[in-house]
């Protein structure tokens, strides 16, 4: 177990608090940015309406014009554009999004959308891992296997996974299957190469030692290579899982839009940007939380590793 010093804990907290601080300064300190003005009283400006948002330049031009003409000047408050809501608005949105009923009966609650996204990720990543990890380990262990598989995989991984969207829909229909396929394509080819490389990093002396002890072929693979690379494969998988989330957003847009992406696009259409931010942050939180849990589980699983070796 890694014991963190108090100073290190402070820095870790700071890595989250610092961006939040910057966001708060931009949101709550008017003269930092606030490029727009929301009209509270239109005065004698014909095209201003209460609640309307105009740029600062427009507002000052109109104010000047009205005072010059001896008319009533408009009143307003400086605000940030609607697409940058303040932290407290996003926080409330995050709460209310879970508590408000969807607008239409056919629509889903936020937690249902989220859960749907998680299942899509889960299946895409699991299917990819079930094939990709064993294949990668074999490529990393046996040179002929590596020569047969890796060049094509190397080539294929440059195909952007979303490019297969239309094809996936044509073959697999409009529901979850093409989405899972996109995540699979996005993960699998990277996974094979990364796992193969990780496997090749195993200390060759361990293999030689095992050979002088009578291990060969299958016993060498299963009793030396696999346990030897397991902690590193676990670490690779954590990183790849993060990538899978980035493919999720594209995957969910193809066919019938679904999951958290559906929620985000829907809310953006209504200009509820606080909800959009809330949803994006939820994805971040889920990702971070899974990673922390996986890291802790990893330390439990691989107790045989010296503490400084665990990330």
């Amino acid at each position, binding site marked *: 177990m890694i014991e963190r010093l108090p100073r290190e804990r402070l820095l870790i907290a700071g890595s989250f608090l610092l961006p939040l601080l910057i966001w708060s300064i931009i949101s709550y300190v008017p003269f930092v940015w606030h490029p727009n003005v929301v009209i509270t009283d239109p005065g004698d400006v014909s095209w201003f309406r209460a609640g309307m948002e105009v740029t600062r330049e427009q507002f000052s031009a109109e104010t000047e014009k009205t005072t010059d003409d001896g008319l009533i000047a408009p009143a307003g408050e400086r605000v940030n554009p609607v697409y940058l809501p303040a932290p407290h608005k996003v926080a409330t949105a995050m709460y209310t999004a879970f508590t408000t009923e969807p607008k239409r009966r056919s629509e889903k609650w936020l937690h249902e959308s989220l859960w749907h996204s998680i299942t899509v990720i889960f299946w895409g990543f699991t299917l990819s891992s079930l094939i990709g990890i064993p294949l990668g380990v074999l490529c990393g262990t046996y040179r002929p296997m590596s020569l047969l598989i890796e060049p094509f995989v190397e080539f294929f991984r440059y195909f952007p996974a979303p490019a297969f969207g239309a094809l996936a829909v044509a073959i697999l229909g409009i529901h979850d299957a093409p989405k899972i396929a996109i995540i699979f394509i996005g993960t699998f080819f990277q996974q094979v190469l990364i796992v193969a490389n990780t496997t090749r990093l195993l*200390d060759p002396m361990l293999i*030689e030692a*095992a050979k*002088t*002890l009578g291990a060969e072929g299958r016993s060498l693979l299963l009793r030396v290579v696999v346990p*030897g690379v397991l902690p590193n494969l676990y670490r690779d998988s954590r990183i790849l899982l993060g990538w899978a989330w980035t493919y999720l957003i594209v995957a969910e847009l193809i066919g019938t839009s679904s999951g958290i992406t559906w929620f985000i696009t829907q809310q953006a259409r209504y200009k509820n940007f606080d909800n959009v931010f809330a949803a994006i942050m939820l994805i971040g939180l889920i990702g971070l939380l899974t990673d922390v849990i996986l890291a802790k589980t990893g330390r439990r699983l*691989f107790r045989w*590793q010296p503490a400084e070796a665990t990330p």
Partner: protein
Amino acid sequence: MSDTDTLIEVRQVTRRFAESTAIKEVSFDVYRGELLTVVGSSGCGKSTLARMMAGLDSPTSGEISIDGKVIDGPSPDRGMVFQKYTLFPWLTVVKNVMFALTVQGQGRRSAESEAMQWVEMIGLSDFAHRYPHELSGGMQQRVAIARSLAARPKVLLMDEPFGALDAQTRQKMQHHLLTICEHVDITVVFITHDLDEAIFLADRVLVLKPNPGEIQDIVNVSLPKPRCIDLQFSHAFVELRTKLASMIHHADEEEDLPMHMLTMKHA
């Protein structure tokens, strides 16, 4: 010695790499039950020789045979202890020692009790269920020896196994090894660049000269057994040491002289 006493025959073995010849036409026998040390300065191909005996490397020409059978790959009848720590980090001490046994299909139970005896012999019973990273370097090498011996090899090849240890630990390890050899019927080929170590341990010392590695001489060590530290101050030991040192020095000089001149010129 009669023929039946020969365990390993090395015949006209040459090992060439792309740029150099590590070992050139080397022939010698390893006798059953002896402890043969191989000394020489670095780059004389000692490790290559050990690796070829283990079957981890093969000669460019010539052959090595054990009990009359030509070596063509690694096998548990030739155990190897490396300079680098090679215990399996994911296995506890006792499971490391069990490795060869279970790989060969022995049941877990009997393998474990057999392994425990080895662990006991190397004096690490208290650490049987610890992982390698919790052990000191000396302890790890003791476990590595036990792990190799548990496979019941005909010969134990040791490639500078104590090279990474501090002087004091190294001396202790030499004692451990000799004690083990008293209790176990084993032949040992021990590679080292440390002359004291080579003489202290050996029944015979094989001196290699570098570039390409050729046999300079094979010297019998007729010092009394069991050996203790004080032996190193005895007249016989010092005399032998001087003899071997001058041998190696000589071989090195022939080799090094042009190099020195080269660096002089550069300077």
